[in-house]
């Protein structure tokens, strides 16, 4: 029971007292309970309390009854609650609005029941019961604020604090520690412990997670997370009793792309962030709710900043996309935002050296060169991290200059943007949980989109779904069948000759995921038509279920295809005289002719700057407002968390300014104006935070593909999980991770 409820109950009682005295003030008795002397009031008092103040479920929890007959009623502190059968006592209490203290229980992990903090009293039970592990039974009378329950919690807390060091002032968890909070709320005000505390050797879990194992209270959340969600068997428990320790058994690093989540999950300061260690206190930080751009998942994040620097990144709950986890790349790449930043416009002089110039001069030079180039020789490439607004501005600007050679990197030389269902994840990330057979074609979700992989892992664990994989040998953290390495296997599947075909054809909800690495292949249309044929044969695309998916690689890809960033001609980079790179660092700059004039607009000095003639500094995603569409086509916006660096400006503002200098002024001056322009092109990008499903299915409307498939095996799309774009390549932590964790 919360303090507020206690207070409100006390208030109710006192108000009843005052009204009673007012009605009978002429009696003037000297007893302390005058209302009992009034027969009417005394009669009302003897009846049970009429109706209790309404309580709301903890955290706005809602219950869903799969079967109305399975509803049972329990009483929590006298409140009747209807819950579905199979819920635990703790969940029933949450629905009733009572927050039970807990350490080991986590709603997304299996139940351990070993911390004993959630003890409550149940009527007719001889001793307090651990509510997290006890199923609620019909008619159960649960009491959460009786002296027995309080005493039990106080006793458990005393035991937990016995071996917990008193180092909160130097602990990074201080201020956001469950043990700290709950010892204040439920603990005793004094201890009786006079012996020595135990000490445990710290474990080395790698460059991301710092361990202070004396603080551990053996809740085993991290062990369960590692096995159940991350799918690695690295962590375990050693020893018994006071010798119990969490560890890796033999000294080794935690090789998981989700290892950072154990930091959030740890209720004490035993597992904390190594890069964040002793950098800041959590109450000094300003949280900004934003979206991650390092992969195409668009994980919801909170950017914690202090002054002008990003101090850390935490996940934000979004059941449809990332649940409450984020990948290590998302969590720890932020130090790349502080290194290798472009902060001033620069022009390469005749001697090949860059000279810092003013914006006016830089834009004037770019505009002049642009007018000298022929329209078909003007080429624009949007980078992996571009937001929809700036891509819209770039496309409009180049179109005004007469060129239509503009694309987004990662989409390949000839992207097919005709049907939205042909490049997004139609099943949705959350929808993957309903699948029973997965076919992964040339994609390794573990490195390409770690959160999608976690969802597949969850499905495999929950429903024993089968996973088939076609592509180069890869490391998966769940059971899978490696069907083949290239298009040959696809043909066999399409013709029904492959042994996996029986699993796929018998599946109720089959899911086929095609990797975006295939976009780079010349025969991608042929591959896609084969995949569509497989999907048709397996009945994967039907009303109510669309199991044909493309897993994109970059944050900008989906929005770029929505906006129609499709180049007019292939191989336009080779013939370009004027190349406008908007944060594009994976363009092969060696193919660019020597006499071409290259403008690099971006926030990091990564690869393309070395070929650039003019550098225009722009702001990173933590510094600007921008729309990003993730791989399932859900548009989300980033929010500026920190100020821009140096003289940098927002991408779309630079293009807008350049268009004016070049004499082809774009008709928008504000972000809302540019968004109304987007509304005419791709209105789904404006429906933020809600996914707009693709209306048409591709299977029937696609033209016949004549070309044959190339039998070359599929390639790995992401070579290094930790370093995929300019920001992550600038990050020291990501460099450490790839050095230590990718070592084979």
């Amino acid at each position, binding site marked *: 029971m919360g303090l507020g409820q206690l207070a409100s109950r006390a208030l109710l009682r006192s108000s009843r007292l005052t009204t009673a005295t007012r009605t009978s003030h002429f009696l003037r008795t000297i007893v302390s309970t005058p209302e009992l002397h009034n027969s009417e009031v005394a009669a009302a008092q003897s009846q049970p309390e009429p109706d209790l103040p309404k309580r709301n479920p903890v955290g706005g929890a809602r219950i869903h009854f799969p079967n109305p007959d399975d509803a049972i009623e329990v009483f929590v502190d006298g409140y009747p609650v209807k819950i579905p059968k199979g819920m635990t006592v703790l969940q029933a209490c949450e629905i009733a609005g009572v927050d039970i203290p807990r350490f080991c229980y986590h709603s997304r992990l299996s139940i351990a029941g070993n911390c004993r903090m959630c003890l409550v009293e149940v009527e007719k039970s001889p001793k307090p019961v651990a509510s997290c592990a006890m199923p609620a039974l019909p008619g159960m009378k649960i009491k959460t604020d009786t002296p027995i329950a309080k005493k039990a919690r106080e006793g458990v807390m005393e035991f937990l604090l016995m071996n917990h060091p008193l180092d909160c002032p130097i602990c990074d968890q201080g201020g956001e520690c469950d043990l700290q909070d709950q010892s204040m709320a439920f603990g005793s005000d004094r201890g009786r412990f006079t012996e020595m505390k135990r000490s445990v050797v710290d474990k080395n879990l790698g460059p991301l997670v710092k361990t202070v194992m004396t603080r551990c209270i053996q809740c085993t959340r991290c062990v369960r997370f590692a096995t159940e969600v991350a799918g690695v068997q690295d962590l375990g428990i050693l020893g018994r009793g006071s010798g119990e320790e969490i560890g890796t058994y033999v000294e080794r690093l935690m090789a998981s792309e989700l290892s950072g989540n154990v930091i959030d999950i740890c209720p004490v300061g035993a597992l904390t962030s190594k890069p964040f260690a002793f950098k800041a206190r959590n109450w000094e930080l300003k949280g900004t709710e934003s979206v991650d751009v390092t992969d195409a998942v668009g994980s919801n994040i909170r950017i914690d900043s202090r*002054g*002008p*620097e990003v101090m850390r990144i935490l996940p934000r709950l979004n059941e449809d996309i990332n649940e409450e986890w984020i990948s290590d790349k998302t969590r720890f790449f932020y130090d790349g*935002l*502080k*290194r*290798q*930043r*472009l*902060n*001033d416009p*620069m022009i390469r002089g005749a001697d*090949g*050296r*860059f000279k810092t110039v003013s914006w006016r001069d830089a834009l004037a030079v770019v505009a002049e060169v642009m007018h000298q180039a022929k329209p078909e020789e003007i080429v624009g490439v949007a980078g992996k991290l571009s937001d929809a607004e700036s891509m819209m501005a770039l496309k409009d600007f180049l179109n005004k200059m007469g060129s239509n050679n503009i694309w987004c990197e990662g989409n390949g030389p000839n992207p097919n943007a005709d049907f939205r269902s042909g490049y997004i994840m139609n099943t949705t990330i959350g929808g993957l949980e309903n699948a029973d057979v997965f076919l992964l074609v040339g994609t390794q979700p573990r490195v390409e989109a770690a959160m999608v992989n976690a969802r597949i892992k969850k499905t495999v664990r929950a429903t024993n779904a089968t996973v088939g994989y076609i592509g180069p040998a890869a490391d998966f953290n769940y059971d899978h069948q490696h069907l083949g390495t290239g298009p040959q296997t696809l043909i066999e599947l399409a013709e029904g000759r492959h042994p996996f075909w029986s699993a796929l054809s018998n599946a109720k909800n089959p899911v086929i995921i095609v990797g975006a690495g295939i976009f780079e292949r010349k025969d991608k249309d042929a591959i896609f038509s084969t995949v569509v044929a497989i999907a048709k044969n397996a009945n994967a695309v039907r009303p109510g279920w669309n199991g044909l998916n493309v897993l994109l690689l970059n944050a900008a890809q989906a929005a770029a295809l929505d906006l129609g960033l499709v180049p007019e001609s292939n191989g336009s980079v080779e013939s370009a005289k004027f190349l406008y790179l908007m944060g594009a660092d994976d363009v092969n700059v060696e193919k660019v002719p020597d006499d071409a004039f290259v403008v690099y607009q971006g926030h*990091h*000095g990564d690869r393309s*700057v*070395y*070929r650039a003639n003019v550098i225009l500094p722009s702001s990173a995603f933590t510094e600007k407002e921008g729309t990003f569409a993730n791989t399932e086509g859900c548009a989300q916006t980033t929010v500026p968390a920190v100020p821009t*660096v*140096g003289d940098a400006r927002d991408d779309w503002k630079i293009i807008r300014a350049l268009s004016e200098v070049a004499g082809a002024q774009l008709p928008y001056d504000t972000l809302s104006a540019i968004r109304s322009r987007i509304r005419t092109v791709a209105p789904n990008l404006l429906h933020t935070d809600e996914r707009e499903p693709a209306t048409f299915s591709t299977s029937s409307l696609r033209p016949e593909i004549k070309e044959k498939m190339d039998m070359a095996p599929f390639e790995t799309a992401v070579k290094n999980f930790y370093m995929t774009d300019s920001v992550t390549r600038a990050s020291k932590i990501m460099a450490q991770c790839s050095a230590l964790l990718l070592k084979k």
Partner: protein
Amino acid sequence: MASVLRNALKSIREKGIGNFVRGLREEGYLSALLDGNLMQTKIHNIGATLVGVDKIGNKYYEKLGDTQYGRHRWVEYAAKNRYNASQVPPEWHGWLHYITDHTGDELLLLKPKRYGIEHKENFSGEGDEYIYHSKGHTLNPGQRNWTRYQPWEPKKA
């Protein structure tokens, strides 16, 4: 008075008239003719004991006996035209103000080696380049760098 004159004549004879006048100027006797404070100090000094000289040349005198208690210690500043109380370094401040009987030379031995910094007089009104500026001030030469990012350095490609 006669002995003063005799000493003056003696030193003129020893050093020559030019050196004698320069000495007078350096000791502040010439400015004392216009500066009553300095003149009074000079008169005071007659018969007083020189307790010490600090590192910028201020002279600390004491005269016990026929001086009023609380006025028996004083300083003759090294600077003869532009002197003020902030020129007294902290180690002599205590002695001069009767806080302690230890002289500045004794207290100097207690000065912390690692973090003790040099005394600076108050330069208020002497121009922006002299006066104290806080760490974040643009005019502070040892100003802290608040840039929280590392810019990309263009190298010759």
